[in-house]
C-alpha cells in the first residue's frame, strides 16, 4: 500500500465572529500512513477539534488540499462524503454524543444501520448484532448492553463511543480527546485500548492536550498558532 491514508496540505480555517475574524488553522500540513497512531497535541482552543473535523469530512477547510485515502475532499459529492464518513472514518467525539433515546447496543449499531439499505439490513442484522456485542465485550461493556447512556459513567460512555466509531471497521479512527473528561487512571485504560487496536493495524489520529497520553502514539505533533510544529 503505497498510497497514504491521509494527506493534508496547507489547510486554513477561520471563523467569523461579527467583525472579528478568528483564524484558527493557518496552513496545517499533515500526512498519515496506514497503521500509524498519530497524536496531535495542542492547548485548549488551539484548533484541534477543528482540524479533526476537517480530517473526518465533518467540516470543510477554507483553503488547502486534503486527500483522504486517495479521494480529494474538495471534489467529493455529498453522497460520496456521506459514504466515506460512514464506512471509512470512525469518529470519537470530545463529548461522546450518544443518542439518549437508544440503549448502548443500539447506539453502537447506528453506523451499521446507516450503512445498509432496509433489505440489506434484514440480511445483516444478526451478524452486525454479534459484531457489536463482541466489540462491546472487548471494551468491557458486555453487561451494559441494554443501559441508556444516561445510566453510564463517563468512561463507560467513552467506550461506547469508541465501539460506535469502530463498528463499521473504518480505515481511520479519529479521536477527539478521548480521555479529556476522564480521570487519569480511566484515561490510561482508554489509551491502552486504543493502543491494542493500533497494534491490530488500526490507523488512528488522536488530538489531546495531555502530553502524557501521547506516549502511546507512534508519532506526536504539536499544534500551535494554527500550525503543526
Amino acid at each position, binding site marked *: 500500500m503505497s498510497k497514504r491514508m491521509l494527506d493534508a496540505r496547507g489547510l486554513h480555517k477561520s471563523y467569523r465572529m461579527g467583525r472579528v475574524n478568528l483564524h484558527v488553522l493557518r496552513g496545517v500540513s499533515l500526512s498519515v500512513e496506514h497503521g500509524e497512531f498519530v497524536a496531535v497535541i495542542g492547548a485548549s482552543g488551539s484548533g484541534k477539534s477543528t482540524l479533526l473535523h476537517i480530517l473526518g469530512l465533518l467540516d470543510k477547510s477554507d483553503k488547502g488540499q486534503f486527500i483522504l485515502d486517495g479521494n480529494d475532499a474538495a471534489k467529493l459529492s455529498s453522497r460520496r462524503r456521506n459514504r466515506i464518513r460512514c464506512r471509512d472514518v470512525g469518529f470519537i467525539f470530545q463529548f461522546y454524543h450518544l443518542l439518549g*433515546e437508544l440503549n448502548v447496543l443500539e447506539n453502537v449499531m447506528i453506523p451499521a444501520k446507516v450503512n*445498509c439499505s*432496509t433489505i440489506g439490513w434484514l440480511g445483516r442484522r444478526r451478524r452486525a448484532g454479534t459484531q457489536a456485542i463482541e466489540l462491546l465485550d472487548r471494551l468491557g461493556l458486555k453487561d451494559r448492553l441494554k443501559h441508556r447512556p444516561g445510566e453510564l459513567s463517563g468512561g463507560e460512555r467513552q467506550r461506547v463511543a469508541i465501539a460506535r466509531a469502530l463498528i463499521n471497521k473504518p480505515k481511520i479512527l479519529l479521536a477527539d480527546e478521548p480521555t479529556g473528561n476522564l480521570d487519569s487512571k480511566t484515561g490510561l485504560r482508554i489509551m491502552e485500548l486504543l493502543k491494542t487496536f493500533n497494534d491490530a493495524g488500526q490507523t488512528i489520529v488522536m488530538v489531546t492536550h495531555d502530553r502524557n497520553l501521547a506516549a502511546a502514539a507512534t508519532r506526536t505533533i504539536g499544534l500551535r498558532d494554527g500550525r503543526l510544529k
Partner: protein
Amino acid sequence: MYKLFLCLRYLRRRYLALVAVVAVALCVAMVLIVVSLFDGFLYKVEHAARGLCGDIVVDGYSISGIKLYDEFIVYLKDEVPEVEAATPVIYTYGLLRVGSRTNTVQICGIRLPERLAVTQFQRDMFVQDGWKNTSFDPPLEHLISRTERHMELIESIIQRESSKPDDKRDEHLLHRLYAAENNSARQREMLITVSLLRKTLEMKRRELQAEQAKPAGLRNDEKIRQLTERMEEVTEWLGKNFRPPEKRVILGLGLANMSFRTPDGDTVRLVTPGRRAVLTILPLGRGSSTTITPNTATFTVIDDARTDLYIIDSNTVYVPFETIQELTDMGAEYSADEDKPGVIAIPARCTQIQIKIKPAYASDSKLIKVRQKVNSAIKKFADNNPFFAGAIPADAQTWREKQAKYIGTIEKQRAVVTIMFGVISLVSVLMVFAIFHMIVTQKIRDIGVVRAVGGSAGGVMQIFLGFGTATAMLGSAIGLTGGYFFVRNINEIEDWMSNWFGVRVYDREVYLFDKIPNTVEPMTMLWLAVGALVAGLIGVLLPAIKAGRMQPVEALRYE
C-alpha cells in the same frame, strides 16, 4: 433503515412526542367540536327557517293584508313554472287561555293539507308525527292511543324518580309529573266519552232514519221526537267539548307551562289533545274602525308541533286559515249598497303567501332568480287587478332573506363563532407547529451524530417527516374519535353537567333550539385529519430542512 428505527424510537421514548400527540388530539377534537356544533346550528336554523315559511315568502305591506290571494296563486303557478305550490297564511297575535293559564301567542292561520306542500308540518308532532296528511282532524282513536302512550311514559318516569333514594329524589319534578298524568288521564276519559257519544249519535241517527222511513201510519212520532231531542243533546255536548275541525288548534311545543322537559330529556305534556283552549284575537283586519273589540272563540287542542326554533315554538299556535280570517275580520266584506247584494266590497285577505319552489330550482343562486320572476308576476298581476294593487304586497323574499329578519341574532352568533373558529384553528396550527419545531430543535445534536456517521441530509429529514406524520395521524385519530363522541353525546354531557354543577350551559330560553345539535359531518373529519397532517408536516419540515442543511459539525455544536 435507521430512519424508521429512529423515527419509532423518538415516538416511543420522547416525552414530548406524547405531548405532541395529545396537543394534536386536543386541537383536532376542539376544532371538530366547534365546527360540528356551528354547522349543526346553522343547518338547523336554515332547515327550521325553510320549514317554517317555504322557499319564497310574499308579505303584505300593511296590516290589511294581501287581497285576491287565491287568484294570485293560480296566476303565479301559471306565470312562474318553477313554483310548485303556494298557500296563504295569516299571522296575528292574541291571547291563549288553557285552563287557568294565559299566554300571549303568535297565531298562525294555515290551510292544512295545502300548507304541507309548501312547508313541513309533520315533524315532531304529538299525534300526527311523520304523517303525510297532517290535518286539524286526525282520527279520534289516534288521539286516545297517543294519550295513553304518553301516560305510560309519565308513569315510567314517575317509577324511575320515586325509586331513587330520598335525598336524590326530585319532589318538584314528581309533583309536576303527577299533575301531567292527572291531566292526561282526564283528557283520555274525555276523548273516550267523545268517541262513545259519536257512536251513540250514529246509532240514534240510523234509528231515526229507520223510523222516518216507515209509512205514515206506522210511524211513532213520539219516538222521533225523543230521538231528535236526545240527538240534539248529544250534539250540543259534543260541540262544546270537542269542537268541529274548524275550531281546532295545534299548539307549538314549548309554550310556557304547557310542557316541560325532564332532566333526562323526556318531554312531558301538561296539555294534551282534547283540551279546551280559548283564543282572544284583536281584529286588526278592518282598517276603518276606530275602536277595536277583541274576538274570542273556543277551540279544542288537537295536536302539538315543533319547528325546532325555540322562539317560534314557545309562542306560536296554529289554527285553520278560514277561522282566523274570520276572527281577525280579514274575510270578505260585502257592499253596503242595497242595490248590489252579494257584491264584494273588500275581498278576503291573508298576511303572507308562502311559496314552494321545485327542488331543481331551490339552490340559493337559482332561488334569487325565481324570486325576481315572482316579483315581476306580482307587478303584472297588480296591473290587471285593482284590488290587488290597492295594497301591493311587499317584494318577495327568499327564505334566507326572510330569515335575516326572523332570526337576525343567529347571524351575529354566526359571525362570533366564525371568528372564534378562525382563531382556534390558527392557534391549533401554530401549536402543532411550535411543538414539532421544539422537538426537532432538541434533536439537532442527534442529527449531527447521524450525519457524522454517514446519514444523508435527506435521510435525516425523513426521520422527522415520518415522526411528524406519525404524531399527527395518531393525534388526529385520537382527537377525531374523542371529538366525535363528545359531539354525539353533547346533550347528555350538558344534562350531566347541569346536574352536577347546577348550571345550565345551554339555556333553552336563550338559544333557539331545545337540543344542542349533535351531528358530525364525515367531510369535516376528513378535512381535519388532512389539516392536522399538513400542520404537523409543516411544523417538522422547516426545522428538518434547517437541520438537513447544516454541516454535521454545526449540528453537533448546536446548543
